């Protein structure tokens, strides 16, 4: 299997949308609307995904083997539609972790250069 032999770093940097989706899915399986909702909560309303953009990202993520669709489950309000859930793959976890480390390093650098003063004197102003 070619895909699993790839190193976690090979698909970095992730697009912001993709990183957010991986972060949401790291918590557990979600269906499409669940991902949109949780991304919004996670970013405090900064990122509102549109349906088309979401599925485009999901498609790319599953093509890269970072996300996989799981079985369909009945919707919570018991209408007949069955929804597909998405889960993060072990590879996806490693990629997300690598991306998080990359970003953490960037934050370190920024802090060293006094670009984020608010982080040290939080609450002042």
């Amino acid at each position, binding site marked *: 299997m070619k895909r699993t032999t790839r190193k976690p770093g090979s698909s970095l940097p992730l697009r912001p949308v993709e990183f957010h989706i991986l972060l949401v899915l790291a918590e557990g399986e979600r*269906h*499409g*609307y669940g991902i*949109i909702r949780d991304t919004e909560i996670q970013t405090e309303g900064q990122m509102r995904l*549109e*349906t*088309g*953009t*979401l*599925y*485009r990202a*999901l*498609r*790319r993520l599953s*093509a*890269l083997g970072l996300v996989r669709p799981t079985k369909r489950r009945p*919707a919570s309000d018991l209408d007949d*539609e069955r*929804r*597909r859930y998405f889960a993060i793959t072990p590879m996806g976890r490693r990629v997300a972790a690598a991306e998080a480390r990359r970003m953490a390093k960037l934050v370190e650098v920024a802090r060293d250069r006094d670009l984020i003063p608010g982080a040290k004197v939080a609450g002042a102003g």
Partner: protein
Amino acid sequence: MHRRIYRALLIAYPPEVRSEFARDMEETFHDRYRATRGTAERFRFWLRAVSDLVATATLDRLGVGRARGLGSGAGGGVRRARGASMIARILQDLRITTRSLAKRPGYTTVVLLTLALSIGAPAAIFTVVDGVLLSAMQYRDPDRLTRVLVNTGGPGWHGASGPEFADYEARLESFENVAAYRGRYTTLGGSTAPLLTMAVFATADLLPMLGVTPALGRTFSAEEDRPGGDPVIVLSYGLWVQLFGGDPEVLGRTVKVNGSLHTVIGVMPRGFNFPSPDYQAWLPLQLSLDNPLARTNHDLDILARLGSGVPMSRARAEVGLLAQRSFDAYPEFYAEHGYRIRLQTLRDQTVGESGTPLLIILGAALFLLLAACVTVANLVLARGETRKREVAVRTALGAPRMRLTGQLLTEHMLLAVVGGLGGVALAFFGVRALIAADPGWIPRLWEVGLDARTLGFSFLLVLTTGLAFGLAPALKMARADISECLKEGVRSGAGSGSSHRLRRTLVVTQVAFAVVLATGVAIMVQTVRNLYRVDLGFRPDHVLTMRLVPSFETYGTAPARVRFYEDALRRVRILPGVTEAAAVSALPLAGEGASNWSYLIAEQPDLSIGDAPFAPIEQVTPGYLDALGLTLVRGRFFNERDGPASPAVAVINEAMARTHWSEEDPLGKRIKVFDPGWPWMEVVGVVKDVRGAGLDREARPLVYVPHAQGHATAYLSHLSLALAVKTEGDPTALAGPIRDAVWGLDADVPIPDVATMGELIAASVADRRFTMLLLSGFGLVALFLASVGVYGVISFVVSQRTHEIGIRMALGARGARILRQVVGEGLLLALLGVTLGLVGALFVSRVFQPLVFGVAVDDPITYLGVAVMLILTAVCASFAPALRAARLDPLRALRANAE
């Protein structure tokens, strides 16, 4: 519903995406939709969802950004990547644009609506103008088809007489063919289910000349066209289906035409409808020239085909010569009134006078589009002010100016394209509505439809519109001085001087456009008002009219006809709600075009038929005076005793009394129709003139005779008369009962053309009313746009000068003074615009000349009124911001700027 729409939209994605994700996407969309509340939120939601869908679907379709190692192979990858990157950049521009537009739904909606409306209006009108005036007729070489019109005294042009037609056929060499025809109401079918339709009786040349081959069989031959030739008929496609169910074996079968059997020899193809869709059958004319006075019966329409390569001027010279020769050869016919022949292409004749109003409306629509462009440019500029800082920052960070200009232009083009799509949709429905509402005076409206030419025209509109309102602001914004902007940026909303100047110029232009449109409106409104103020000479209210067309078989003789109308009117008169009922050969203002007849006056020298005076002769029943509310000036009107056996009588109108007996009493004078053997009629009454030919046409001499005496004094008693029924209440409510009353007498009488007299009058001025209504709509929109423009600029001036006004007020300037000054700014803009507009209107209003009535196209009062109105509007529009300025709290104004 929302689900179904979204599902339909998903078609934008490539099939492989759809098969895998469509259902999930629809579910997710549904979930999100349920989470939105309220119309405004739903609207924003849709806007975002659709722009997201368009953007992602386009990227998918182009295969941009697809995960590597899966889709694209290695071969050709480089070239593809480069092409894709350019496309990707354009797409990125589009995405950025849609996103930034979606963030300002208010702005976007206003711009899109303005554009859609202002592109839709000209597109719809263009469709009609194109279909009616520009596109080719369905005949072979239509531009060589020529109508030959004749004038032998009196106003207007009419057809030719049989002998005149024979002259054209024999002598004119400029034409390949000359054909004659006349249209008649015709009853088709047996006695059980007769069908009333219009039929053309034509010489054998007519149908071949048009160059349309029959769908079945043949057209009639010259032998069949001779007097006494075989009775044959060519059917329209519709009639073939209606009468014979589209039976291909129809040839050789027979149809009863006005009571006699005719053999079907041909069926014309679907869509053939010469001279108009009312005509459903074509029969041989079988013209006979026996009558020695036939030369004066101008009842034939003439159509001729110009020889190939023959210029119209040569044909004109030839007919002029022919008219002169005939004038010399037949002085007894032409000496007094002359003989003139006019040639007109079929297209000009068909389109006729409708061209002017249509072109005016198209012009007005284009004017409106210009005004809208200016409005949108103004909006874009205003928005540019708030975006200036963004643009400056991006330039400072190294964004290439080309790219920025491109992005801004992309945004404006996108607006134009989306607005244009909306406009085309509007045009589609507009044209459908127009055809459905058929104002009646637009010829060939039945042929009109949205086609490639309209789409091309709309595309052109969109392109020019986008450039017109988008290019200047885009260049301007991208060229802005960065450091200046970044400094200025502190003061939000403040714009540079040059852009402000541009906005003021735009507002002046807006006002000018509004003035031009408003002047057109004012001229048309006065025209229509004047037309309605004209003294008709009768009372049109509470009158219902309809035509009765009894069959020739049942009512072949005069007594039978007279009795039929007496009985029918008696039955109608006793209906509850009916005050009076009468019948007349031709109703006023119904466009029925009564024929003129030559007459003689007793005790005046005998004249030749060419020298004798002529007038229409109306056959009426005694109740006509009261039914239509005519005014009796002298003597009496007809009564029941004016029967076939009693002395012959006539009533004349004032115009005729003035013409012949201006010094004497016309009562007791005697007149008769010109032909020998007819009795003298005594003039027993004079009625006030009725404007019968048109509200704007002066009445001409007219003779009324009793229908009961028609066969004894005026050639015949007419078979088909129009009913005029005066009612107490709503006349339309009686249409059913009246028809039933007539059908109670004879169920086989077709009753077409049911209309109130009011409707007939409205139809007679329909072209002016239609022009006026559309122009008024356009004018109102232009006025609104102009006042919004003034408001915007003045508001902007006030917000920009808050600081200055604050200082002045702190120094003691009074509110009233500030108010005056700010309103003065608006007034200045308005004055400039009005001056410009009035000059423009003076030029443009000339096109109204053929339409106006009772008002001059350069009427100073009208122009003054328009000017005052526009200035008042501008003052009102600048009043609100001025008031805001006058009520400024100086302290807060100063502080606001210091922050």
